[in-house]
Protein backbone atom coordinates (compact mmCIF):
# COMPACT_ATOMS: atom_id res chain seq x y z
CA UNK A 1 0.00 0.00 0.00
CA UNK A 2 1.35 3.36 -0.89
CA UNK A 3 1.85 5.94 1.83
CA UNK A 4 0.58 9.43 1.30
CA UNK A 5 2.20 12.69 2.37
CA UNK A 6 -0.93 13.53 4.28
CA UNK A 7 -0.31 10.79 6.82
CA UNK A 8 3.29 11.62 7.52
CA UNK A 9 4.80 14.25 9.72
CA UNK A 10 7.61 16.39 8.37
CA UNK A 11 10.51 14.82 10.28
CA UNK A 12 9.40 11.27 9.50
CA UNK A 13 8.98 12.07 5.82
CA UNK A 14 12.38 13.73 5.62
CA UNK A 15 14.12 10.84 7.35
CA UNK A 16 12.52 8.46 4.86
CA UNK A 17 13.57 10.54 1.88
CA UNK A 18 17.12 10.85 3.14
CA UNK A 19 17.37 7.09 3.71
CA UNK A 20 15.96 6.33 0.29
CA UNK A 21 18.35 8.69 -1.45
CA UNK A 22 21.18 7.17 0.51
CA UNK A 23 20.22 3.66 -0.54
CA UNK A 24 19.86 4.70 -4.16
CA UNK A 25 23.30 6.29 -4.15
CA UNK A 26 24.75 3.14 -2.63
CA UNK A 27 22.94 1.13 -5.30
CA UNK A 28 24.43 3.28 -8.06
CA UNK A 29 27.94 2.71 -6.77
CA UNK A 30 27.49 -1.00 -6.18
CA UNK A 31 25.95 -1.58 -9.59
CA UNK A 32 28.81 0.20 -11.29
CA UNK A 33 31.40 -1.82 -9.42
CA UNK A 34 29.78 -5.22 -9.29
CA UNK A 35 28.12 -5.62 -12.64
CA UNK A 36 30.44 -5.92 -15.56
CA UNK A 37 27.98 -5.05 -18.26
CA UNK A 38 25.05 -3.33 -16.70
CA UNK A 39 22.19 -3.90 -19.01
CA UNK A 40 20.68 -0.46 -18.64
CA UNK A 41 18.24 -1.29 -21.38
CA UNK A 42 17.04 -4.39 -19.56
CA UNK A 43 16.45 -2.54 -16.30
CA UNK A 44 14.56 0.15 -18.15
CA UNK A 45 12.30 -2.13 -20.12
CA UNK A 46 11.68 -4.34 -17.11
CA UNK A 47 10.55 -1.23 -15.27
CA UNK A 48 8.02 -0.64 -18.02
CA UNK A 49 7.12 -4.31 -17.77
CA UNK A 50 6.30 -3.92 -14.08
CA UNK A 51 3.82 -1.20 -15.00
CA UNK A 52 2.17 -3.39 -17.60
CA UNK A 53 2.14 -6.35 -15.21
CA UNK A 54 0.51 -4.29 -12.47
CA UNK A 55 -2.35 -3.42 -14.79
CA UNK A 56 -3.33 -7.06 -15.06
CA UNK A 57 -5.20 -8.74 -12.26
CA UNK A 58 -5.52 -12.37 -11.37
CA UNK A 59 -8.05 -13.92 -9.04
CA UNK A 60 -6.60 -14.82 -5.69
CA UNK A 61 -7.65 -18.35 -4.86
CA UNK A 62 -9.87 -18.70 -1.86
CA UNK A 63 -10.82 -15.07 -1.51
CA UNK A 64 -12.57 -14.44 -4.78
CA UNK A 65 -11.06 -11.01 -5.12
CA UNK A 66 -8.42 -10.07 -7.63
CA UNK A 67 -5.05 -8.49 -7.25
CA UNK A 68 -1.84 -7.78 -9.02
CA UNK A 69 1.77 -8.38 -8.12
CA UNK A 70 4.20 -5.81 -6.89
CA UNK A 71 7.14 -7.67 -8.39
CA UNK A 72 9.97 -7.15 -5.93
CA UNK A 73 10.97 -10.78 -5.60
CA UNK A 74 10.27 -11.42 -9.29
CA UNK A 75 12.53 -8.58 -10.37
CA UNK A 76 15.27 -9.52 -7.94
CA UNK A 77 15.33 -13.07 -9.23
CA UNK A 78 15.59 -11.88 -12.81
CA UNK A 79 17.86 -8.87 -12.45
CA UNK A 80 19.72 -9.24 -9.19
CA UNK A 81 19.10 -7.41 -5.93
CA UNK A 82 20.48 -3.93 -6.60
CA UNK A 83 19.30 -3.47 -10.21
CA UNK A 84 15.88 -4.71 -9.12
CA UNK A 85 15.89 -2.15 -6.33
CA UNK A 86 16.61 0.68 -8.74
CA UNK A 87 14.00 -0.62 -11.17
CA UNK A 88 11.26 -0.92 -8.57
CA UNK A 89 12.16 2.48 -7.12
CA UNK A 90 11.82 4.03 -10.55
CA UNK A 91 8.37 2.47 -10.90
CA UNK A 92 7.33 3.96 -7.56
CA UNK A 93 8.65 7.37 -8.52
CA UNK A 94 6.78 7.35 -11.79
CA UNK A 95 3.61 6.17 -10.09
CA UNK A 96 3.88 9.09 -7.70
CA UNK A 97 4.52 11.61 -10.46
CA UNK A 98 2.31 10.42 -13.30
CA UNK A 99 -0.51 8.67 -11.47
CA UNK A 100 -0.62 10.62 -8.21
CA UNK A 101 -0.14 7.34 -6.37
CA UNK A 102 1.39 8.37 -3.08
CA UNK A 103 3.07 11.73 -2.69
CA UNK A 104 6.47 13.22 -3.40
CA UNK A 105 7.56 13.37 0.21
CA UNK A 106 6.19 9.93 0.94
CA UNK A 107 8.37 8.44 -1.82
CA UNK A 108 11.19 7.87 0.62
CA UNK A 109 9.29 5.49 2.84
CA UNK A 110 7.44 3.96 -0.07
CA UNK A 111 10.74 3.06 -1.68
CA UNK A 112 11.98 1.59 1.56
CA UNK A 113 8.80 -0.30 2.41
CA UNK A 114 8.21 -1.71 -1.02
CA UNK A 115 11.48 -1.79 -2.93
CA UNK A 116 14.16 -2.06 -0.27
CA UNK A 117 12.54 -4.75 1.86
CA UNK A 118 11.90 -7.20 -0.93
CA UNK A 119 14.98 -6.55 -3.06
CA UNK A 120 17.65 -5.72 -0.52
CA UNK A 121 16.59 -7.66 2.55
CA UNK A 122 14.33 -10.62 1.81
CA UNK A 123 15.74 -11.61 -1.55
CA UNK A 124 19.38 -11.84 -0.44
CA UNK A 125 18.50 -13.52 2.84
CA UNK A 126 15.95 -16.08 1.72
CA UNK A 127 15.52 -16.34 -2.02
CA UNK A 128 19.05 -15.94 -3.30
CA UNK A 129 20.74 -18.75 -1.34
CA UNK A 130 18.00 -21.13 -2.36
CA UNK A 131 18.23 -20.04 -5.98
CA UNK A 132 21.94 -20.78 -6.06
CA UNK A 133 21.28 -24.37 -5.12
CA UNK A 134 18.27 -24.58 -7.40
CA UNK A 135 20.26 -23.35 -10.37
CA UNK A 136 23.14 -25.70 -9.65
CA UNK A 137 20.78 -28.64 -9.46
CA UNK A 138 19.10 -27.56 -12.66
CA UNK A 139 22.32 -27.14 -14.60
CA UNK A 140 23.99 -30.32 -13.36
CA UNK A 141 20.75 -32.27 -13.47
CA UNK A 142 21.91 -33.83 -10.24
CA UNK A 143 18.41 -33.99 -8.84
CA UNK A 144 15.27 -34.70 -10.80
CA UNK A 145 13.88 -31.26 -11.50
CA UNK A 146 10.46 -32.11 -10.20
CA UNK A 147 11.74 -32.58 -6.67
CA UNK A 148 13.00 -29.06 -6.41
CA UNK A 149 9.82 -27.43 -7.65
CA UNK A 150 7.71 -27.64 -4.49
CA UNK A 151 10.61 -26.23 -2.49
CA UNK A 152 10.94 -23.48 -5.05
CA UNK A 153 7.30 -22.58 -4.74
CA UNK A 154 7.38 -22.60 -0.95
CA UNK A 155 10.50 -20.45 -0.72
CA UNK A 156 9.07 -17.98 -3.21
CA UNK A 157 5.79 -17.72 -1.33
CA UNK A 158 7.68 -17.29 1.91
CA UNK A 159 9.84 -14.55 0.45
CA UNK A 160 6.91 -12.61 -0.96
CA UNK A 161 4.90 -13.05 2.21
CA UNK A 162 7.61 -11.93 4.60
CA UNK A 163 8.62 -9.10 2.32
CA UNK A 164 5.10 -7.73 2.12
CA UNK A 165 4.50 -8.16 5.84
CA UNK A 166 7.66 -6.27 6.69
CA UNK A 167 6.56 -3.55 4.30
CA UNK A 168 3.14 -3.42 5.96
CA UNK A 169 4.79 -3.28 9.34
CA UNK A 170 6.90 -0.41 8.09
CA UNK A 171 3.81 1.50 7.04
CA UNK A 172 2.29 1.15 10.49
CA UNK A 173 5.52 2.22 12.16
CA UNK A 174 5.78 5.31 10.03
CA UNK A 175 2.16 6.19 10.65
CA UNK A 176 2.74 5.71 14.34
CA UNK A 177 5.86 7.82 14.42
CA UNK A 178 4.13 10.60 12.55
CA UNK A 179 1.42 10.85 15.16
CA UNK A 180 -1.04 12.11 12.60
CA UNK A 181 -3.75 9.51 12.70
CA UNK A 182 -5.23 8.22 15.88
CA UNK A 183 -5.41 4.70 14.59
CA UNK A 184 -4.50 2.49 17.49
CA UNK A 185 -1.21 0.88 16.66
CA UNK A 186 -2.21 -2.62 17.63
CA UNK A 187 -5.44 -2.69 15.66
CA UNK A 188 -3.92 -1.03 12.64
CA UNK A 189 -0.99 -3.41 12.69
CA UNK A 190 -3.21 -6.45 12.86
CA UNK A 191 -5.35 -5.13 10.07
CA UNK A 192 -2.40 -4.43 7.82
CA UNK A 193 -0.70 -7.71 8.57
CA UNK A 194 -3.79 -9.77 7.92
CA UNK A 195 -4.61 -8.10 4.63
CA UNK A 196 -1.05 -8.41 3.44
CA UNK A 197 -1.03 -12.03 4.45
CA UNK A 198 -3.44 -12.91 1.67
CA UNK A 199 -1.83 -10.51 -0.76
CA UNK A 200 1.52 -12.06 0.09
CA UNK A 201 0.31 -15.58 -0.54
CA UNK A 202 -1.24 -14.50 -3.83
CA UNK A 203 1.89 -12.71 -4.94
CA UNK A 204 4.02 -15.63 -3.87
CA UNK A 205 2.00 -18.12 -5.87
CA UNK A 206 1.92 -15.85 -8.90
CA UNK A 207 5.64 -15.11 -8.74
CA UNK A 208 6.51 -18.77 -8.36
CA UNK A 209 4.28 -19.72 -11.28
CA UNK A 210 5.73 -16.98 -13.46
CA UNK A 211 9.31 -17.97 -12.70
CA UNK A 212 8.60 -21.63 -13.34
CA UNK A 213 7.11 -20.81 -16.73
CA UNK A 214 10.06 -18.57 -17.57
CA UNK A 215 12.42 -21.40 -16.66
CA UNK A 216 10.36 -23.73 -18.82
CA UNK A 217 10.18 -21.54 -21.91
CA UNK A 218 13.52 -19.81 -21.77
CA UNK A 219 15.77 -21.01 -18.99
CA UNK A 220 18.77 -18.92 -19.95
CA UNK A 221 17.00 -15.82 -18.69
CA UNK A 222 17.37 -17.07 -15.17
CA UNK A 223 21.00 -17.95 -15.68
CA UNK A 224 21.90 -14.72 -17.38
CA UNK A 225 22.42 -13.26 -13.97
CA UNK A 226 25.35 -15.55 -13.35
CA UNK A 227 27.23 -14.06 -16.23
CA UNK A 228 26.52 -10.53 -15.09
CA UNK A 229 27.02 -10.84 -11.38
CA UNK A 230 30.20 -11.67 -9.61
CA UNK A 231 30.09 -13.75 -6.44
CA UNK A 232 27.93 -12.66 -3.55
CA UNK A 233 30.30 -10.41 -1.68
CA UNK A 234 29.10 -6.98 -0.77
CA UNK A 235 26.23 -8.10 1.39
CA UNK A 236 28.14 -6.54 4.21
CA UNK A 237 27.18 -3.18 2.79
CA UNK A 238 23.56 -4.16 2.57
CA UNK A 239 23.47 -5.44 6.11
CA UNK A 240 25.15 -2.26 7.29
CA UNK A 241 22.52 -0.17 5.52
CA UNK A 242 19.77 -2.25 7.05
CA UNK A 243 21.31 -1.83 10.47
CA UNK A 244 21.46 1.93 10.05
CA UNK A 245 17.85 1.87 8.93
CA UNK A 246 16.83 -0.05 12.00
CA UNK A 247 18.71 2.29 14.28
CA UNK A 248 17.22 5.39 12.70
CA UNK A 249 13.69 4.05 12.78
CA UNK A 250 14.10 2.93 16.34
CA UNK A 251 15.60 6.27 17.23
CA UNK A 252 12.76 8.24 15.72
CA UNK A 253 10.22 6.09 17.48
CA UNK A 254 11.86 6.34 20.86
CA UNK A 255 12.22 10.07 20.45
CA UNK A 256 8.50 10.34 20.03
CA UNK A 257 7.86 8.00 22.89
CA UNK A 258 10.12 9.89 25.24
CA UNK A 259 9.01 13.37 24.25
CA UNK A 260 5.53 12.83 25.50
CA UNK A 261 5.83 10.77 28.65
CA UNK A 262 2.93 12.15 30.62
CA UNK A 263 0.40 12.05 27.88
CA UNK A 264 1.18 8.49 26.94
CA UNK A 265 1.10 7.05 30.43
CA UNK A 266 -2.11 8.78 31.15
CA UNK A 267 -3.60 7.64 27.92
CA UNK A 268 -2.98 3.97 28.60
CA UNK A 269 -5.68 3.71 31.22
CA UNK A 270 -7.96 5.82 29.09
CA UNK A 271 -7.35 3.56 26.16
CA UNK A 272 -8.05 0.39 28.03
CA UNK A 273 -11.34 1.76 29.25
CA UNK A 274 -12.46 3.45 26.08
CA UNK A 275 -11.34 0.56 23.89
CA UNK A 276 -13.85 -1.64 25.58
CA UNK A 277 -16.62 0.87 25.02
CA UNK A 278 -15.74 1.44 21.42
CA UNK A 279 -15.75 -2.24 20.83
CA UNK A 280 -19.49 -2.13 21.07
CA UNK A 281 -19.96 1.20 19.36
CA UNK A 282 -17.84 2.14 16.42
CA UNK A 283 -15.26 -0.56 16.03
CA UNK A 284 -15.44 -1.90 12.51
CA UNK A 285 -12.95 -4.60 13.18
CA UNK A 286 -14.76 -6.50 15.92
CA UNK A 287 -11.87 -7.69 18.00
CA UNK A 288 -12.56 -9.45 21.24
CA UNK A 289 -11.94 -7.23 24.24
CA UNK A 290 -9.54 -9.66 25.92
CA UNK A 291 -7.32 -9.78 22.88
CA UNK A 292 -7.31 -6.03 22.67
CA UNK A 293 -6.27 -5.68 26.26
CA UNK A 294 -3.47 -8.11 25.69
CA UNK A 295 -2.25 -6.09 22.77
CA UNK A 296 -2.54 -2.79 24.54
CA UNK A 297 -0.55 -4.10 27.46
CA UNK A 298 2.23 -5.45 25.27
CA UNK A 299 2.60 -2.10 23.56
CA UNK A 300 1.80 0.26 26.35
CA UNK A 301 4.12 2.97 25.21
CA UNK A 302 2.89 3.02 21.68
CA UNK A 303 -0.67 4.03 22.16
CA UNK A 304 -1.39 7.26 20.38
CA UNK A 305 -2.93 10.20 22.04
CA UNK A 306 -6.61 9.68 21.56
CA UNK A 307 -7.71 13.08 22.60
CA UNK A 308 -6.48 13.24 26.12
CA UNK A 309 -4.37 16.30 26.56
CA UNK A 310 -2.06 18.04 28.85
CA UNK A 311 -0.98 21.63 28.87
CA UNK A 312 2.02 21.17 26.61
CA UNK A 313 -0.04 19.78 23.80
CA UNK A 314 -2.59 22.51 23.81
CA UNK A 315 0.17 25.04 23.29
CA UNK A 316 1.32 23.22 20.22
CA UNK A 317 -1.94 23.71 18.51
CA UNK A 318 -2.78 26.92 16.78
CA UNK A 319 -5.68 29.10 17.78
CA UNK A 320 -8.72 26.98 17.35
CA UNK A 321 -11.52 29.26 18.11
CA UNK A 322 -14.69 28.96 16.16
CA UNK A 323 -14.23 32.38 14.63
CA UNK A 324 -10.82 31.55 13.27
CA UNK A 325 -11.93 28.31 11.71
CA UNK A 326 -15.10 29.55 10.18
CA UNK A 327 -13.35 32.61 8.81
CA UNK A 328 -10.74 30.46 7.17
CA UNK A 329 -13.34 28.11 5.77
CA UNK A 330 -15.32 30.96 4.31
CA UNK A 331 -12.27 32.33 2.54
CA UNK A 332 -11.54 28.87 1.23
CA UNK A 333 -15.03 28.35 -0.09
CA UNK A 334 -15.03 31.72 -1.82
CA UNK A 335 -11.70 30.95 -3.41
CA UNK A 336 -12.90 27.58 -4.63
CA UNK A 337 -16.02 29.13 -6.15
CA UNK A 338 -14.00 31.80 -7.88
CA UNK A 339 -11.46 29.31 -9.10
CA UNK A 340 -14.08 27.00 -10.54
CA UNK A 341 -15.76 29.94 -12.21
CA UNK A 342 -12.54 31.21 -13.77
CA UNK A 343 -11.63 27.69 -14.81
CA UNK A 344 -15.02 27.22 -16.43
CA UNK A 345 -14.68 30.47 -18.30
CA UNK A 346 -11.22 29.59 -19.50
CA UNK A 347 -12.46 26.22 -20.77
CA UNK A 348 -15.21 27.94 -22.70
CA UNK A 349 -12.80 30.42 -24.23
CA UNK A 350 -10.37 27.72 -25.20
CA UNK A 351 -13.15 25.78 -26.91
CA UNK A 352 -14.04 28.73 -29.10
Amino acid at each position, binding site marked *: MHMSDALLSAPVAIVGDALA*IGLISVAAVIIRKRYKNVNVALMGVMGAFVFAAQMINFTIPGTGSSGHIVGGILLSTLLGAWPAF*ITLSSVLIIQALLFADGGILALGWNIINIAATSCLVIYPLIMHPFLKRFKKGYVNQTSPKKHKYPAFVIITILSCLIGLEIGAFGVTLETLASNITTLPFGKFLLFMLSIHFFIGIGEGLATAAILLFVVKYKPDILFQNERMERSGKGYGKMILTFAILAIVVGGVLSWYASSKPDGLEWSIEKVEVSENQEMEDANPLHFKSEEMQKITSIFPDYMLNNGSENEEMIHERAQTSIAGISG*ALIVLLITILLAVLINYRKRKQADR
Partner: protein
Amino acid sequence: MKNLEIIISEIRSVETNAGITGTKTSVNPCGSILISIIFLVSMLTFSIYDIVNTIPYVITLLIVLIITSIPFSLILRKSKYLLLFVLFIAIFNPIIDRNTAIEIGSFKISYGWLSFFTILLRGFVSITTALILVISTGFIPLCKALEKLRLPNILVTQLLFVYRYIIVLLEEASQISNAIKSRGYGNKKFTIKLYAIFIAQLIIKTYTRAEMINMSMISRGFDGEIRTRSDMKWKRRDTFFCIIAIVIIFILRIVKPFGYIDKLL
Protein backbone atom coordinates in the same frame (compact mmCIF):
# COMPACT_ATOMS: atom_id res chain seq x y z
CA MET B 1 -6.82 -6.05 -18.40
CA LYS B 2 -7.99 -2.57 -17.69
CA ASN B 3 -8.86 -0.57 -20.70
CA LEU B 4 -5.63 0.20 -22.50
CA GLU B 5 -6.95 3.38 -24.06
CA ILE B 6 -7.77 4.84 -20.68
CA ILE B 7 -4.38 4.07 -19.20
CA ILE B 8 -2.50 5.46 -22.16
CA SER B 9 -4.55 8.63 -22.13
CA GLU B 10 -3.80 8.96 -18.42
CA ILE B 11 -0.09 8.89 -19.16
CA ARG B 12 -0.42 11.23 -22.10
CA SER B 13 -2.62 13.62 -20.14
CA VAL B 14 0.38 14.69 -18.16
CA GLU B 15 2.17 15.73 -21.32
CA THR B 16 -0.57 17.23 -23.42
CA ASN B 17 -1.26 19.73 -20.72
CA ALA B 18 2.32 20.87 -20.52
CA GLY B 19 1.79 22.89 -23.66
CA ILE B 20 -1.02 24.86 -22.17
CA THR B 21 0.78 26.36 -19.22
CA GLY B 22 2.18 29.80 -19.64
CA THR B 23 4.72 31.25 -17.30
CA LYS B 24 5.66 28.14 -15.40
CA THR B 25 7.21 26.25 -18.26
CA SER B 26 9.96 28.76 -18.69
CA VAL B 27 11.03 28.36 -15.10
CA ASN B 28 14.06 26.21 -14.47
CA PRO B 29 12.69 22.92 -13.13
CA CYS B 30 15.40 22.70 -10.48
CA GLY B 31 13.80 25.68 -8.88
CA SER B 32 10.27 24.28 -9.12
CA ILE B 33 11.33 21.00 -7.56
CA LEU B 34 13.03 22.63 -4.59
CA ILE B 35 10.21 25.09 -4.06
CA SER B 36 7.63 22.30 -4.18
CA ILE B 37 9.50 20.33 -1.55
CA ILE B 38 9.91 23.32 0.75
CA PHE B 39 6.24 24.16 0.22
CA LEU B 40 5.10 20.69 1.22
CA VAL B 41 7.47 20.31 4.13
CA SER B 42 6.44 23.67 5.55
CA MET B 43 2.82 22.60 5.44
CA LEU B 44 3.54 19.34 7.20
CA THR B 45 5.22 21.13 10.08
CA PHE B 46 1.92 22.58 11.22
CA SER B 47 0.03 20.74 13.90
CA ILE B 48 -2.42 18.21 12.61
CA TYR B 49 -5.25 20.09 14.29
CA ASP B 50 -4.30 23.34 12.62
CA ILE B 51 -6.89 23.48 9.88
CA VAL B 52 -6.80 27.26 9.87
CA ASN B 53 -3.21 27.48 8.74
CA THR B 54 -3.46 24.62 6.27
CA ILE B 55 -6.20 26.32 4.28
CA PRO B 56 -3.95 29.08 2.87
CA TYR B 57 -1.88 26.34 1.24
CA VAL B 58 -4.96 25.10 -0.56
CA ILE B 59 -5.79 28.63 -1.65
CA THR B 60 -2.27 29.18 -2.94
CA LEU B 61 -2.52 26.03 -5.03
CA LEU B 62 -5.89 27.03 -6.44
CA ILE B 63 -4.36 30.31 -7.55
CA VAL B 64 -1.43 28.49 -9.12
CA LEU B 65 -3.84 26.19 -10.92
CA ILE B 66 -5.61 29.18 -12.39
CA ILE B 67 -2.40 30.84 -13.47
CA THR B 68 -1.08 27.72 -15.14
CA SER B 69 -4.48 26.91 -16.71
CA ILE B 70 -4.38 23.31 -15.62
CA PRO B 71 -7.88 21.86 -15.85
CA PHE B 72 -9.46 21.03 -12.51
CA SER B 73 -11.05 17.92 -13.89
CA LEU B 74 -7.59 16.49 -14.51
CA ILE B 75 -6.52 17.05 -10.91
CA LEU B 76 -9.73 15.59 -9.54
CA ARG B 77 -9.58 12.58 -11.77
CA LYS B 78 -6.04 11.70 -10.83
CA SER B 79 -6.41 12.29 -7.13
CA LYS B 80 -9.61 10.42 -6.41
CA TYR B 81 -8.11 7.04 -5.51
CA LEU B 82 -5.47 8.32 -3.19
CA LEU B 83 -7.88 10.71 -1.53
CA LEU B 84 -10.27 7.83 -0.93
CA PHE B 85 -7.47 5.88 0.70
CA VAL B 86 -6.52 8.83 2.88
CA LEU B 87 -10.16 9.27 3.77
CA PHE B 88 -10.41 5.68 4.87
CA ILE B 89 -7.52 6.07 7.24
CA ALA B 90 -8.33 9.56 8.41
CA ILE B 91 -11.92 8.72 9.29
CA PHE B 92 -10.64 6.98 12.40
CA ASN B 93 -9.60 10.29 13.85
CA PRO B 94 -13.10 11.59 14.52
CA ILE B 95 -14.12 8.15 15.72
CA ILE B 96 -11.40 7.87 18.31
CA ASP B 97 -10.42 11.40 19.15
CA ARG B 98 -13.62 12.76 20.63
CA ASN B 99 -12.37 15.47 22.90
CA THR B 100 -14.13 18.69 22.27
CA ALA B 101 -12.16 21.45 20.71
CA ILE B 102 -14.85 23.98 20.09
CA GLU B 103 -18.31 24.45 21.44
CA ILE B 104 -21.07 26.48 19.89
CA GLY B 105 -23.85 26.21 22.35
CA SER B 106 -24.64 22.53 22.45
CA PHE B 107 -22.91 21.79 19.12
CA LYS B 108 -19.45 20.33 19.72
CA ILE B 109 -16.61 19.95 17.23
CA SER B 110 -14.07 17.45 18.32
CA TYR B 111 -10.33 17.47 17.75
CA GLY B 112 -10.88 14.37 15.75
CA TRP B 113 -12.91 16.21 13.16
CA LEU B 114 -10.37 19.00 12.99
CA SER B 115 -7.56 16.61 12.28
CA PHE B 116 -9.73 14.70 9.83
CA PHE B 117 -10.27 17.72 7.66
CA THR B 118 -6.70 18.85 7.98
CA ILE B 119 -5.51 15.46 6.79
CA LEU B 120 -7.79 15.65 3.79
CA LEU B 121 -6.57 19.11 2.93
CA ARG B 122 -3.00 17.93 3.26
CA GLY B 123 -3.74 15.05 0.94
CA PHE B 124 -5.17 17.40 -1.61
CA VAL B 125 -2.25 19.81 -1.35
CA SER B 126 0.34 17.07 -1.66
CA ILE B 127 -1.27 15.45 -4.69
CA THR B 128 -1.95 18.72 -6.42
CA THR B 129 1.58 20.02 -5.84
CA ALA B 130 3.05 16.90 -7.41
CA LEU B 131 0.68 17.09 -10.36
CA ILE B 132 1.33 20.76 -10.98
CA LEU B 133 5.04 20.09 -10.85
CA VAL B 134 4.92 17.32 -13.43
CA ILE B 135 2.32 18.89 -15.69
CA SER B 136 3.86 22.31 -15.90
CA THR B 137 7.42 21.08 -16.22
CA GLY B 138 6.99 17.98 -18.35
CA PHE B 139 8.26 14.60 -17.24
CA ILE B 140 11.42 14.61 -19.33
CA PRO B 141 12.71 18.04 -18.30
CA LEU B 142 11.86 17.06 -14.74
CA CYS B 143 14.13 14.02 -14.94
CA LYS B 144 16.95 16.11 -16.34
CA ALA B 145 16.50 18.58 -13.52
CA LEU B 146 16.72 15.72 -11.02
CA GLU B 147 20.04 14.75 -12.52
CA LYS B 148 21.23 18.32 -12.14
CA LEU B 149 20.20 18.08 -8.50
CA ARG B 150 22.67 15.21 -8.17
CA LEU B 151 20.35 12.25 -8.41
CA PRO B 152 22.45 9.29 -9.63
CA ASN B 153 22.66 8.95 -13.41
CA ILE B 154 21.55 5.35 -13.31
CA LEU B 155 18.24 6.25 -11.69
CA VAL B 156 17.54 9.15 -14.03
CA THR B 157 18.33 6.99 -17.06
CA GLN B 158 16.04 4.38 -15.59
CA LEU B 159 13.19 6.87 -15.25
CA LEU B 160 13.58 8.03 -18.85
CA PHE B 161 13.68 4.48 -20.15
CA VAL B 162 10.62 3.38 -18.23
CA TYR B 163 8.75 6.42 -19.47
CA ARG B 164 9.83 5.71 -23.03
CA TYR B 165 8.69 2.11 -22.96
CA ILE B 166 5.59 2.09 -20.74
CA ILE B 167 3.26 2.53 -23.65
CA VAL B 168 5.09 -0.02 -25.78
CA LEU B 169 4.87 -2.61 -23.02
CA LEU B 170 1.23 -1.82 -22.35
CA GLU B 171 0.42 -2.36 -26.01
CA GLU B 172 2.32 -5.62 -26.01
CA ALA B 173 0.44 -6.78 -22.92
CA SER B 174 -2.78 -5.76 -24.59
CA GLN B 175 -1.90 -7.88 -27.62
CA ILE B 176 -1.25 -10.95 -25.51
CA SER B 177 -4.46 -10.25 -23.63
CA ASN B 178 -6.42 -10.12 -26.86
CA ALA B 179 -4.80 -13.33 -28.02
CA ILE B 180 -5.95 -15.04 -24.85
CA LYS B 181 -9.43 -13.54 -24.94
CA SER B 182 -9.97 -14.40 -28.59
CA ARG B 183 -9.73 -18.03 -27.65
CA GLY B 184 -12.59 -17.92 -25.21
CA TYR B 185 -11.07 -16.84 -21.92
CA GLY B 186 -12.84 -13.52 -21.95
CA ASN B 187 -15.39 -14.35 -19.33
CA LYS B 188 -13.65 -16.98 -17.32
CA LYS B 189 -11.76 -16.08 -14.23
CA PHE B 190 -8.19 -15.23 -14.85
CA THR B 191 -6.52 -17.98 -12.89
CA ILE B 192 -3.03 -17.76 -11.56
CA LYS B 193 -1.80 -20.32 -14.07
CA LEU B 194 -3.11 -18.36 -17.04
CA TYR B 195 -1.86 -15.16 -15.55
CA ALA B 196 1.58 -16.66 -15.03
CA ILE B 197 1.76 -17.82 -18.65
CA PHE B 198 0.75 -14.35 -19.76
CA ILE B 199 3.34 -12.62 -17.64
CA ALA B 200 6.07 -15.11 -18.51
CA GLN B 201 5.44 -14.44 -22.20
CA LEU B 202 5.66 -10.74 -21.54
CA ILE B 203 8.95 -11.20 -19.70
CA ILE B 204 10.47 -13.21 -22.52
CA LYS B 205 9.39 -10.65 -25.09
CA THR B 206 10.78 -7.92 -22.90
CA TYR B 207 14.13 -9.66 -22.67
CA THR B 208 14.30 -10.04 -26.45
CA ARG B 209 13.46 -6.39 -26.82
CA ALA B 210 16.09 -5.41 -24.29
CA GLU B 211 18.68 -7.38 -26.28
CA MET B 212 17.81 -5.43 -29.39
CA ILE B 213 17.88 -2.11 -27.61
CA ASN B 214 21.22 -3.00 -26.11
CA MET B 215 22.55 -3.76 -29.56
CA SER B 216 21.16 -0.52 -30.84
CA MET B 217 22.98 1.32 -28.10
CA ILE B 218 26.24 -0.51 -28.66
CA SER B 219 26.03 0.05 -32.41
CA ARG B 220 25.94 3.76 -31.69
CA GLY B 221 28.90 3.73 -29.39
CA PHE B 222 27.34 3.29 -25.94
CA ASP B 223 30.01 3.01 -23.29
CA GLY B 224 28.02 2.59 -20.09
CA GLU B 225 26.75 6.08 -19.38
CA ILE B 226 23.94 7.90 -21.09
CA ARG B 227 24.54 11.61 -21.44
CA THR B 228 21.66 13.93 -22.09
CA ARG B 229 21.74 17.46 -23.31
CA SER B 230 22.00 19.86 -20.43
CA ASP B 231 20.76 23.12 -21.82
CA MET B 232 18.98 24.36 -18.75
CA LYS B 233 20.50 27.56 -17.59
CA TRP B 234 19.64 29.46 -14.49
CA LYS B 235 18.33 32.80 -15.54
CA ARG B 236 17.55 35.91 -13.56
CA ARG B 237 13.91 35.13 -14.06
CA ASP B 238 14.38 31.90 -12.11
CA THR B 239 15.95 33.69 -9.16
CA PHE B 240 13.04 36.11 -9.25
CA PHE B 241 10.54 33.27 -9.23
CA CYS B 242 12.30 31.51 -6.37
CA ILE B 243 12.43 34.65 -4.25
CA ILE B 244 8.74 35.28 -4.71
CA ALA B 245 7.93 31.66 -3.94
CA ILE B 246 10.03 31.67 -0.78
CA VAL B 247 8.39 34.88 0.35
CA ILE B 248 4.99 33.30 -0.15
CA ILE B 249 5.99 30.19 1.77
CA PHE B 250 7.40 32.40 4.50
CA ILE B 251 4.09 34.22 4.76
CA LEU B 252 2.20 30.94 4.85
CA ARG B 253 4.35 29.32 7.49
CA ILE B 254 5.76 32.02 9.70
CA VAL B 255 3.39 34.94 9.37
CA LYS B 256 0.35 32.67 9.44
CA PRO B 257 -2.13 35.07 7.86
CA PHE B 258 -5.29 33.26 8.81
CA GLY B 259 -4.38 33.27 12.45
CA TYR B 260 -5.29 36.94 12.39
CA ILE B 261 -8.84 36.36 11.24
CA ASP B 262 -9.47 35.09 14.70
CA LYS B 263 -8.23 38.31 16.21
CA LEU B 264 -10.08 40.47 13.75
CA LEU B 265 -13.44 39.00 14.63
